[in-house]
């Protein structure tokens, strides 16, 4: 860990006792850098084995790393917790101003334990932590309003981060998210529901300190080198211009865009929901996370007339990215661009994970088509491909949970399919709803084996796209996924945005550490990456995860990928090989202490 750096300070907050204290955990930061590595270690220490994710026993850890506040595009915060969606490791990353605020408030991690009896929000600035009465904010219709109120009452304008939940979190929908600084999210695996169970409405962090650097001229030199390569790489331009929504058309052309619950992998309305169309007709503003020059966050301006008042318009800014476009657009067969934007705005206002919500609605639609659920269950609403008005109603209902069906749907797609049937077309992996890539075997194997069951764990989609037209060797694919996931543990411990993975090569990371007074070699980094990966898997196994119980939804074998139809026995072999490699490695790891 960098010398003279406040990074090793860990802030512990007990919501039950309304107490807080700081401990120096240099031991952990020396061993695992920060971010993911430190967060998972702290979770292992604090979480009672087998804890109920929605009980006061659950623990939330936010962590940043040595590069946050120091180098550009080190702009993410890692959150870990026990997930109420899959009852196992919950891990989610977000940007906005969160990482800079936490780091410059003088902390490397924040551990939140216990639960409050009445709604609170917690405000952190320097060494001061305040528990504030949030009863009046509980039940407020939109996360936008909550943000507006907190912006007014809190200080630190320009140097703060406001993380809050919406009604979905309060109602403990198991895939509720935490909205960060408007338009960024700890989206996946239900952190919002954990906040809700703790009666924690929001967390406000204000930080504007400096971070001491050992070799100042060298720091500026390395900084400039990184800055230059960010500005010169074509990826920066791509993320800035169209943003991640640039992927819609190429993935559609490739036949890898999951459509209508993956009955198809091409969408005839792809044009309407493409980054190009959104940019031309709706793009209103681009914004950036703190300390990132890319500005990939794209906001559409949705202009809607009021019914009763002529010439009176309401303009809403709606964030869009590839993933939510997939889940609430192509997956639901939504051809109307404004309809899609309304759906995106709805999940934003309620504080739901867009990906899980879309996949849950897609399953609902197909289950309805097949008669597994009826209008009795849906309370008269007919889920129909493309009918966004009805989807808007269903989203409200699954948050309010007025009957058995909606309460079940609020527990996630996998659970709902267990109750109502339709598991063959429930697109989930390890209890988490599937990301938007039907690119081939590596993507699906990655969703299954990745520690957070996310496309970002091991980027199988990228491997698939690079190997289109070639024969994939099982061994190569498995090795790629394992190695990629391990290197990513290093990046997310620093904590670098994964869009900068091309910039922060092992060599650049080594160079970046030097001015901070830290000597680490490339092989040290790879060793740490492996250890963090195994640490996460150990956590998962201890909490009941089992490779042999992983399943591939049958649907993925029915719809062709750019690599043709996937072969169940090939996937099974790959999964077994992955499992045996990990088990062997875990044994070595455990016997090495």
């Amino acid at each position, binding site marked *: 860990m960098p010398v003279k750096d406040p990074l090793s300070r860990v802030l512990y907050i007990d919501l039950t006792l309304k107490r807080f204290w700081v401990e120096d955990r240099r031991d952990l930061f020396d061993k695992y850098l920060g971010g993911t590595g430190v967060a998972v270690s702290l979770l292992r220490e604090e979480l009672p084995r087998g804890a109920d994710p929605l009980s006061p026993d659950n623990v939330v850890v936010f962590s940043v790393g040595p590069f946050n506040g120091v180098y550009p595009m080190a702009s993410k915060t890692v959150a870990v917790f026990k997930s109420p969606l899959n009852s196992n490791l919950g891990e989610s990353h977000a940007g906005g101003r969160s990482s800079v605020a936490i780091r*410059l408030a003088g902390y490397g991690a924040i551990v939140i334990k216990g639960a409050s009896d009445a709604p609170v929000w917690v405000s952190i600035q320097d060494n001061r932590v305040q528990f504030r009465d949030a009863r009046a904010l509980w039940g407020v219709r939109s996360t936008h309003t909550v943000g507006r109120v907190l912006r007014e009452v809190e200080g630190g304008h320009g140097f703060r981060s406001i993380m809050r939940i919406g009604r979905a979190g309060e109602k403990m929908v198991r895939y509720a998210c935490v909205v960060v600084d408007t338009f960024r999210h700890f989206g996946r695996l239900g952190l919002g529901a954990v906040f809700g169970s703790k009666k924690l409405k929001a967390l406000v962090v204000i930080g504007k*300190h400096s971070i001491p650097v050992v070799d100042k001229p060298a720091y500026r030199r390395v900084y400039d080198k990184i800055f230059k390569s960010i500005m010169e790489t074509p990826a920066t331009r791509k993320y800035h211009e169209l943003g991640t929504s640039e992927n819609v058309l190429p993935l559609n052309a490739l036949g890898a865009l999951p459509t209508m619950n993956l009955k198809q992998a091409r969408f005839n309305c792809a044009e309407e929901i493409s980054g190009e169309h959104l940019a031309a007709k709706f793009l*209103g503003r681009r914004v950036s996370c703190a300390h990132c*020059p890319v*500005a990939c966050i794209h906001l559409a301006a949705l202009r809607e007339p009021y019914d009763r008042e002529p010439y009176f318009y309401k303009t809403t800014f709606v964030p869009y990215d590839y993933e939510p476009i997939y889940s609430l657009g192509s997956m639901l067969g939504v051809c109307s661009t404004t309809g899609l934007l309304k759906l995106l705005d709805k999940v934003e206002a309620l504080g739901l994970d867009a990906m899980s919500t879309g996949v849950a609605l897609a399953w609902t639609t197909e289950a309805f088509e097949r008669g597994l659920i009826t209008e009795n269950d849906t309370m008269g609403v007919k889920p129909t491909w493309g009918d966004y008005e009805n989807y808007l109603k269903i989203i409200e209902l699954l948050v309010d949970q007025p009957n058995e069906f909606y309460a079940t749907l609020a527990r996630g797609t996998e659970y709902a399919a267990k109750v109502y049937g339709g598991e063959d077309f429930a697109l989930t992996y390890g209890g988490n709803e599937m990301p938007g890539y039907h690119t081939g075997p590596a993507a699906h194997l990655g969703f299954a084996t990745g520690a957070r069951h996310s496309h970002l764990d091991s980027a199988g989609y990228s491997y698939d796209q690079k190997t289109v037209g070639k024969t994939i060797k099982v061994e190569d694919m498995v090795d790629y996924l394992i190695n990629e996931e391990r290197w990513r543990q290093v990046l997310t411990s620093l904590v670098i945005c994964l869009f900068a993975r091309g910039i922060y090569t092992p060599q650049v990371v080594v160079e970046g550490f030097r001015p901070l007074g830290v000597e680490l070699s490339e092989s040290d980094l790879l060793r740490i990456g492996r250890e963090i990966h195994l640490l996460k898997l150990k956590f998962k196994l201890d909490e009941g995860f089992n490779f042999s119980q992983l399943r591939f939804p049958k649907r993925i074998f029915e719809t062709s990928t750019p690599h043709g139809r996937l072969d169940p026995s090939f996937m099974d072999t790959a999964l077994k090989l992955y499992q045996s490699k990990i088990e062997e490695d875990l044994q070595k790891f455990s016997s090495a202490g």
Partner: protein
Amino acid sequence: MAKPRRLSVVDVDLCVGCMMCVFACSRRFGDGGVARSAIKVASIGGIERGFTVIVCRACPDPPCASVCPTDALNRRDGGGVVLNHRKCIGCGNCVKACPYGAVMWDEEANKPIVCMYCGYCAQYCPYGVIEIEEVKN
């Protein structure tokens, strides 16, 4: 002698709120973080409405200098002020006097921070929002 310069906010609507300028200004002193930045970027009531870039605009008749009880802030040729650290007692009058809120505060040193018009930040602004310019007479 070189003409006096000042930092100008050319087009604030281009600003994406990345804070690259804020980090650059503190890096003048070789550290990370933002504690010593003379420039600040904040949203105007939610980032969907855009940003405001707050920095000293080099007033020809600077109110901050008028209220300093120890004459620690001296008028600069071409507008704005230069801080004499030794004279400054950290009273904070200058902060209150600036209608733009452009006199920042270094919490770690308990002294004001005022832009010195070096232009370092502008080199890192990816979108041409801020530029250094010569002061027109």
